[in-house]
């Protein structure tokens, strides 16, 4: 017994108590009982002593037995200093509902917002069952059909650098076992080892026991693969598109062609757009900024990388200081760079230092696409085909040359609105190229 209910005093304040006298009634869990005094004396009941019905704890002071003439302590002491009740504060935060790590992981995997899940656990704690009840059954099913792997095989896969998520398990229920990881590692061991030593770990893919045939992978292919994957996985890419009226651009190009000299290259659409792009970048330098762990880096020089398709694969030679080049220079240098790229004679310097990339798939009739950011840059422009299309001008349908621009930018560096303003500037430049080229 740790506490009981105080029944009543069986003796009055000031009465003389003999040993064995019943003093008061205490109600325990099972019964009420008379509590006898083990000592003799005069009973003194303090004014703040327990009242009938109050809970009293074992050891709690109820009253005093004093000698004749002795004063009880409550008569001699001054009134006790009052104290303010201190309530325990409650933050009352609704930010994150309580949930265990397993529940959180499950919510992450199922893309469930835990705040929306009613918790049935103590204190509103969200349990795995709550998450299961919340998400549509189809998602639960998907989660339960995920690849299973034995703990031993999982550990081994980590040690051997094997990505087990694509393996087919040989266990009776499809579980990936130690032997599956070992055979995968044996089949692709050398390639996997090379990749991991070149530091492009995200590119590792082990196809297990697929029959083949297998193509060998060139160093360039590996580099492209690594850079492309990084452009997708290590940035926050967003792609926006806009359609421009390219009629004036087409018109301008016609004029260049008609007045061209023999020994000078006629600026192509790509050259025109590169030059217009440089103007837009001068007005929106944020698109050239770069995300680094230390902070946002502002590179010097308006160097634009231009994607060039070659037999060996994609290359992006860099055209330097485009803002300072004349359109004629742009066309000439671009022609030279493209030739170097296709002949494999680019130097390392020729492909370094770009602050923005432009990629043109218009010659294949592609209108819009989602180009991949060329790290450490923050944006890339995809240029589509110029298409003769019906346009509505002053409520009249008229034929027009239309060009679609696709801009992928890294949202870590640039927000949507400034990116859109940049693209708007570029569109306006394309629609009125004469004025823009004068700037």
């Amino acid at each position: 017994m740790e506490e009981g209910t105080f029944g009543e005093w069986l003796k009055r304040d000031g009465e003389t108590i003999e040993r064995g006298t019943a003093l008061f009634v205490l109600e325990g869990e099972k019964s009420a009982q008379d509590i006898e005094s083990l000592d003799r004396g005069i009973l003194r009941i303090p004014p703040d002593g327990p009242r009938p019905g109050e809970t009293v704890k074992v050891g709690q002071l109820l009253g005093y037995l004093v000698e004749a003439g002795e004063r009880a302590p409550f008569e001699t002491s001054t009134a006790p200093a009052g104290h303010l009740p201190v309530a325990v504060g409650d933050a009352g935060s609704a930010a994150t509902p309580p949930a265990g790590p397993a529940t959180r992981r499950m919510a992450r995997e199922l893309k469930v917002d835990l705040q929306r899940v009613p918790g049935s656990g103590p204190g509103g704690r969200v349990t795995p069952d709550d998450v299961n009840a919340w998400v549509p059954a189809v998602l639960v099913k998907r989660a339960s059909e995920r690849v299973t792997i034995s703990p031993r095989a999982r550990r081994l896969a980590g040690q051997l650098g094997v990505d087990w998520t694509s393996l087919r398990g040989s266990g009776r229920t499809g579980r990936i076992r130690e032997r599956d990881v070992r055979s995968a590692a044996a089949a692709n061991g050398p390639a996997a080892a090379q990749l991991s030593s070149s530091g492009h770990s995200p590119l590792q893919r082990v196809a297990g026991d697929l029959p083949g045939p297998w193509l060998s992978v060139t160093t360039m292919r590996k580099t492209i693969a690594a850079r492309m994957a990084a452009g997708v996985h290590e940035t926050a890419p967003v792609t926006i598109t806009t359609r421009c009226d390219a009629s004036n651009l087409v018109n301008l190009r016609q004029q260049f062609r008609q007045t061209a000299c023999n020994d000078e290259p006629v600026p192509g659409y790509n050259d025109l757009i590169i030059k217009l792009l440089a103007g837009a970048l001068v007005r929106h330098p944020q698109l050239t900024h770069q995300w680094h762990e230390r902070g946002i880096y502002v590179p010097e020089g308006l160097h634009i990388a231009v994607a060039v398709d070659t037999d060996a694969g994609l290359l992006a030679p860099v055209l330097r200081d485009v803002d300072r080049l004349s359109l004629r220079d742009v066309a000439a240098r671009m022609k030279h760079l493209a030739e170097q790229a296709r002949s494999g004679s680019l130097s390392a310097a020729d492909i370094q230092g770009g602050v923005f990339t432009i990629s043109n798939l218009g010659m294949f009739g592609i209108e819009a696409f989602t180009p991949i950011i060329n790290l450490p840059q923050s944006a890339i422009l995809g240029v589509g085909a110029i298409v003769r299309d019906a346009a509505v001008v002053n409520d009249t349908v008229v034929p027009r040359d239309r060009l679609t621009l696709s801009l992928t930018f890294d949202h870590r560096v640039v927000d949507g609105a400034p990116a859109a303003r940049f693209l708007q500037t570029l569109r306006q430049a394309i629609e009125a190229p004469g004025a823009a080229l004068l700037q």
Partner: protein
Amino acid sequence: MSSTLASVTAAVSRQTLLVLYRQMQLIRQCEEQLARAHQKGLIHGACHTYVGQEAIAVGVCAHLQTEDVVFSTHRGHGHALAKGVGPRELFAELFGRANGCSRGRGGSMHLFSPETGMMGTSGIVGPCILQAAGAGYSFKLLESDQVGVAFFGDGAANNGAFHEGLNMASIWNLPALFVCENNQFATEVPLSYSAGNPDVGSRAGAYGLPGVTVDGNDVVAVYAAAGEAIDRARHGRGATLLECRTYRTRAHAEGMGDFSYRTREEVEEWKRRCPIAALEARLVAEGIATPDELRQITAEIETLTADAQQFAEQSPLPDPATAAQHIYAAPRIGIRSVSAPPPGTREITYIKATHEALAEEMAANPKIFVMGEGIGKRGGNFNTTVGLYDLYGAVRMCDTPISERGFVGLGCGAAMTGTRPVIDFMFADFILDSVGEILNQIAKMQYMSSGRLKMPILLRGCIGIGHSAATHHSGNYYPLYAHIPGLRVVVPSNPFDAKGLMKHALRCDDPVMFLEPRELLNLKGPVPTEDYEIPFGQAAIVQPGTDVTVVAIGRMVPQVLAAAKQLTQPGISIELIDPRTVAPLDMESILASVAKTGRLLIVDECFAPFGIGAEIAAGIADCGFDELDAPIRRVNGLHTPTPYSPTLEAAVVPQIEHIVSAIKNLVDE
């Protein structure tokens, strides 16, 4: 009831009378002070006071030497003080302090002070009777003149332990005294209601023992009767039942209601018969002591009591880090272990191997004695003791009545007092009647006494299904015992292990459940003739392998070996591990094997739920999760009582084909 006359008082010396007075005052004042302390919340648990019954402990213990031993009940403060436990140690114990007599592990109901011959009080009614008989058995075997005394209430007189204990004390003529403190209520059930014959003292005759009934509130009467009984015990004339009629004048336990089952008037009537006041009046009336002399004794005791309380309050609480100490005796060091018998070793049966171990240890250690039904001249139902009776006689090879609880409880008391009992209970099923003695007393005794008592007792018998023995001769039960802290549980699977483990069991100070699979008793195997022992907690790798770890226990070890012979296809190489002891369980060896194979199967004839397999699986899932290449699997006997008919019997035991298919399935997982 023998009356106390002035002439009796005259026969007791003035010095003794004053000692009796002083001791009663000590108990009374300590109890009242403890009651106050309980009201103040200084005593954390129960507090059963001895107020009103002081004359009994004092009158009996006045005849005891330090070497004599007392076993008592939940109402044991008075016995402890009378036997010589200091009030400081008593108070400190009830206050839960590190220097209490039980080092803070016992409280009011578990007072241990083996140094003073206070062998413990118990929260269970009855075992103290058996333990006192066991002490008597030790003293008989050791040929000492010590005496074992049990104090118990009238409630215990209706418990089986009373019947079995008094009967055994009678047939073996044990130096014991059984003191029934008849305070008329078993908690709140009156003896007049609960006994067909409430004259407890008269029941001694039913067992061929002398029975004496005295006024328990008359210390001189108790002193006189106890003196006679103890003298009888000391001189080889056997045990006595002494009934002392008395009354406790405080509630069963402090803080409990008192007048729901008895009246205030009745309590007041008994308070007037206070044993201390009675002696005081007589001492003054007969001119033996003056009131001043008695007041002076009372004042001295007041000082002692106040000092005890102050000492206890100032004493430190026990260090929480010590909470799991002394569950087992300190392990012996320097044991030379033998890995396996060398080739060419002679082959003997399992039963012969344990017989050799027992015979060799009995020859080396005269404190070993064996108890069981038919283990004397007959040599045991399974020939466990053949020939030993002729060598060691009836005291060391003791045939028992069918009183399993009795002789197991007796064995507990014997192990506490200097001898090493071997209890041979034939079939494991039989010993279930004594499980309270094993779990509540034997297993806990070392811990509760904070390692000051040892518990060198070996409990052996057959386990396992076979021979159409049906449900009362086929149980395994070892998970039950392995669950309990304080027990060692051994299940040998071959003659070599059986001998080495029994040798170790007979040399260690812990209680050992030595469980022998009946189906293996005639199994032959190599056993060296040289002395060797196998320490507990060391698994044997019966067969090394690479693909699957199979842990098998007892009878299942040869079954798995047979299964392995059938599994000859590549990719199924079995590593078979025999833990040999399930408590302690050698998880390290199992983990090391699973680290190699990645697969674990546990084969156990015993039931799956809450079993050894579950324990092993949980341990490996915890410590070896990343080693596992497949789920952990178990093969167990069916969760059913054992049926008789051979077809039914075979259906409840794991068969070789079950093991084969379980291993194949596990490899495919």
